[in-house]
């Protein structure tokens, strides 16, 4: 930790996603701790909070808000004077977002269902459709130190899908040397959008049947995506050994175990970065990071 890392002289970059199938296994705990550790070691690091539905990293990491970008989507506006109620926009819409009763001359856009694909605009031959922007959420950037940045994706409450906001947040981070992606839970679209951008995925799980079931699903998904990954078991000591057994049987690397500890839980509950004041945890995280960086970092030369 004391010596400069000669191999990290800006010639490599890496994106690491911190993910889990199951919620509440410690993604945010790990992301903020890893970010803190790298920051303490003067690395150029950006953490992107990709859990746009429930972003929490900014609770743990304070910084100066340097920019806020609105993320918008296009939705159609139908001019009922120009509209001939031909129904072609309705036919083109794959999301059932246009409701039409031609005989009664009723046409309505269900903005909640609209994905902003523009098919209706293309369909309309009478110039009756224009588009407007609606807000999906925000991307907030915080400067944490000279070398570290937090980017928070925050979906607007009531919006159906966080995917556009997540994409925007990750795109804003694309120039940094080390990028950590605190992923949304699950293995559906938001998760895929996040991990598909990563060079390496750390899966964090807990040693319970639920944890194992969701871990399996995450592993299967990452295999089909050809992503390298390793596993961290959080709250080790609770539950049973089925996760360890599964990892052994499938030769999946176990990166570390974080023991169950009420002190960790209490610190986390107060919004403290768990690695703060835990030099042994920082050392271990740095070691894991260095291994990943060496093996999976992308050479910029």
């Amino acid at each position, binding site marked *: 930790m004391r010596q400069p890392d000669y191999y990290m002289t800006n010639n490599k970059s890496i994106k690491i996603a911190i993910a889990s*199938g*199951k*919620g*509440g*296994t410690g993604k*945010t705990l790990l992301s903020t701790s890893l970010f803190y550790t790298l920051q303490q070691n003067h690395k150029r690091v950006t953490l992107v909070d990709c859990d746009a*539905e*429930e972003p*929490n990293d900014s*609770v743990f990491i304070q910084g100066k808000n340097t920019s806020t970008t609105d993320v918008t989507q*296009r939705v159609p506006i139908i001019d009922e004077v120009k509209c001939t109620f031909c129904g072609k926009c309705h036919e*083109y819409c*794959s*999301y059932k977002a246009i409701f039409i009763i031609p005989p009664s001359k009723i046409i309505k856009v269900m903005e909640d269902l609209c*994905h*902003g*694909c*523009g*098919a209706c605009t*293309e369909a309309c031959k009478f110039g009756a459709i224009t588009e407007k922007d609606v807000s999906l959420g925000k991307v907030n950037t915080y400067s944490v130190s000279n070398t570290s940045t937090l980017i928070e994706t925050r*979906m607007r*409450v*009531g*919006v*159906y*899908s*966080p995917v556009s906001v997540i*994409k925007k947040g990750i795109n804003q981070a694309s120039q940094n040397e080390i990028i950590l992606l605190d992923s*949304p*839970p*699950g*293995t*559906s*679209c*938001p*998760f*895929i*959008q996040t991990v*598909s951008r990563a060079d390496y995925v750390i899966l964090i799980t*807990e040693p*319970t*049947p*639920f944890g194992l*079931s*969701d871990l399996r*699903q995450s592993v*299967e*998904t990452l295999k*089909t*995506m050809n992503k390298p990954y390793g596993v961290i078991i959080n709250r080790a000591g*609770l*539950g*049973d050994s089925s996760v360890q057994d599964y990892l052994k049987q499938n030769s999946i690397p176990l990166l570390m175990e974080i023991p169950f500890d*009420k002190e960790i*839980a*209490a610190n*986390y*509950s*107060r*919004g403290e970065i768990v690695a703060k004041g835990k030099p042994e945890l920082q050392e271990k995280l740095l070691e894991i990071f260095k291994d990943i960086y060496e093996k999976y970092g992308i050479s910029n030369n």
Partner: protein
Amino acid sequence: MELAIISGKGGTGKSSISAAFATLNQNIVLADCDVDAANLYIIFNPTHQDEQVYIAGQTAVIDYSICTNCGICKEYCRFDAIHFVNGQIEISETSCDGCQLCSRVCPHSAITMVNNDKSRMYSGAFRNGKMVYGRLAPGEENSGKLVNMVREKAKTIAKENGLSHIIIDGPPGIGCAVISSITGVDNVLIVTEPTISGLHDLERTLEVVSKFNLKAWVLVNKYDLNPEMTAKIEAKCNSLNIAIAGKLPFCTDVVDAMVSCKSIVEWKPDSALSKEIASIWKKIENNLQ
């Protein structure tokens, strides 16, 4: 009557509470609507009486024997899903939203749409009633629609079998799957934990819930891990006129029960925790009538 159990933040104990409620009763339909990470089947090992395919939208596929690489589709795609890769046009399966516009504008009709048909809905019986659960295939969207399908099935089963209560184990977050899980239910129970993240997520969840006309309850799980934060959560709920259903202490019995594929009320029926859960259920059930 339908009760949805949601949480905002993941891992607060939704499924453990749902399992406990389900095993306090004999006349239950349990609907696992956390279709992205369905877990209750692990505890209940339900029979598979019925399996249905769920079509989670479509994906565009290029027929390269027809494609002239003109790139018109790329111009129209608003999901950044179409790119030239090494000089050849390609559609990214993960970014494609299934809107079909590329297929419609292709001058050579080289693009067709294929159904995303890997997701499933299962239903059957478990030891305390009937159960329905959905499993969304990895990477697929529209989980809200699968949630609707699970809930419709649960309602049909309840009607056919004269079962009075439907318990919905909902997904985390505040997106479409959550909205689908609570639309039209009578009661929603939000399980939270006394952490600053838990409180933050609860606030966003309450904001979503406030858009619906339903009775909302909050349950503070593992309340003793941070009594101060628990007090903050209670104060927040009081200020918003949200009922506190109860508080449960942190207890490793819950994990042991799960490891043994039992709910906590099956595992330690006489424990203080199980009794507290039973009294919380009674409180909510009285309101369900």
